[in-house]
């Protein structure tokens, strides 16, 4: 599966995207990312270690995970996960 980064998360990961074997769910993926890039730790996972960081946006195939199964949204190879911090414009 593919993981894409935008805004400051791209700077943390130092890449635009990468391919990875799909973990079982979004939370599993977030934990993999935190291990690989420790700077993500206090951003994409909340202090309880079980939910999404308050200022992170995660999309699975373009859908916000809040409208799927949250961090329990299951993942499969072929999926695209998009990660970015809260941003706005207009």
């Amino acid at each position: 599966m593919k993981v894409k980064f935008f805004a400051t998360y791209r700077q943390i990961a130092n890449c635009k995207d990468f391919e990875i074997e799909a973990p079982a769910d979004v939370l599993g993926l977030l934990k993999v990312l935190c291990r690989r890039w420790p700077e993500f730790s206090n951003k994409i996972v909340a202090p309880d270690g079980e939910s999404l960081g308050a200022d992170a946006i995660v999309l699975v195939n373009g859908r916000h995970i809040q409208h799927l199964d949250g961090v329990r949204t299951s993942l499969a190879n072929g999926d695209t996960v998009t990660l970015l911090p809260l941003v706005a414009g207009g």
Partner: protein
Amino acid sequence: MAVGNAWIGTVLRVDLTTGTWGTEPLRMKDANDFVGARGLGTKYFCDECDPNVEPLSVENKLIYMTGPLTGTAATSAGRFEVVAKAPLTGTIGAANSGGHFGPELKFAGYDGIIFEGGADHPVYLYINDDRIELRDATHLWGKDVHKTTDMLIEECGNVRVSCIGPTGERGCLFSAIMNEKNRAAGRGGLGAVMGVKNLKAVVVRGTGPVKVARPEGFLRELTKARAIIQAHPVTGTGMAAYGTQILMNILNEVGALPLCNGRGGSIFDHADEISGEKLSETYLVKNQGCFGCSIACGRVTRIPDDSPYAGFGEGPEYEAGWSFGADCQVDDLAAVCKANFICNEYGMDPITLGATIACAMELSEMGAIPESDIGFPLRFGDSDAVVRLTKMCAEGEGFGKLLELGSYRMAEHYGHAELSMSVKKQEMPAYDARAIQGIALEYATSNRGGCHVRGYMIAPEVLGLPIKTDPLVTEGKGSLLKTFQDLTALCDSVGICLFTTFGMGLPEIAGQYREAVGSDESDEDILLKGERIWNLEKRFNMAAGVEKDTLPPRLLREALPSGPAKGKVAELQTMLADYYEVRGWTSEGEPTDEKLEQLSLG
């Protein structure tokens, strides 16, 4: 509320026909009921101008109005509004701008300026505190916005300049009124109203104070509001780092980037090439802010001299990045920047122009516009053509004369008005209404035609601000949009920047307003003023015979072919019924007598 309580208490009225002017007391009851800027400017306009006035006639009035917070230390309080009947739409035209011009007008001793009639030769209004002159502007006529601004600063010294470019002089239906070169009262074509009056510019220098009613309470409220803005990830650091262009990638990811005039798919493979991230890596020189703004979202950009698109200026904002970029399938960021620079220099709304070029591209590919009319082959993806057509429109040359009518009238000329991606003849901006149901409703009901900043439903539907709603469902969107529209009307009218509302909300706006004007009204009472303003605008539009609330047939019938919103159309009818009900309007979308009575508009 009394004079001195955030208000100066004085309105300047200028009769351009006779070349005379005078001051009059600000109508304080109206200032209380309609807040300021957008609301108060609209109230003056509605009281003084026939709704059926021809927008491009000297009978159309042009009103500059500040808000009570404009020029105070409140959060991002540099905003002012220009109000007239809009040439592009025939609706009430109210366009908001930042920079420093609005505060300077108040420092000079005026809450607003009402321009009546038209001069028999080009003039500009010079204001230096209580010294006022209508000066000859023949030497400025035909000059672009940047040149005009430089010449006026050289001529008048340390002044703030609001002016039009050649497009406004010529009557381009989406010409903007620009201040401090790159800030725009951008939408609806108000620049052309200034042009028809032979009014090239307003320059102002002010040295007086703006006093608030309860300084201690005001300081307490603005300190609270500032802390919230600075601590928020968007208004604290995000917008300064990337500007509004940061939205390009995320809108693409959620499948909501309108492509190829709405004809295309839903994902632009080259979105990253024209994104905020890319702009920061390449052409960004620095960020900058308007008066009293810590958010500082402005982009100062430079395209190097060795590029065919060399230039220096500001932007692009996300909307221009989309209109000249994704909508035209252009992935050359330098070309997008160049087209945007030209818009600023000549005073044009880049949303309407980019969308009009995209519409021309579709018509051209269909064979509906003969190549001989344009002068060269026109297809999606041609960055040179986008810059070339932007210049042609700026100069009013050849096919540019049709472009300057906007997409509706241009497409109508070729027998395909249905392919104009506009509402009430104003182009919708950078969010596909099929992928975000809430913005579909906003586009259809906006009181100034296709517009995102009358009720920015992207905040909840995509970004989760202040709550996350599902963009693919219609339930609840009517009442959410009503709240956004009323709050936005309030925000625009107090004189602070709408972008502050990404971080703060009604309590902070109302708190600062109360202390500034010396009011004890509740938050709800203050929000009700936003609703009153919305209904006032609606009532004007009805009297002006503006067409009903709908969307282009493409968005209602042609489903998105792919992406996260695959199969979706804009489900407008369901949402409209819900919206009219929560607004207390008839099923035809007209405010009832009871509603008008409740809002003291009866």
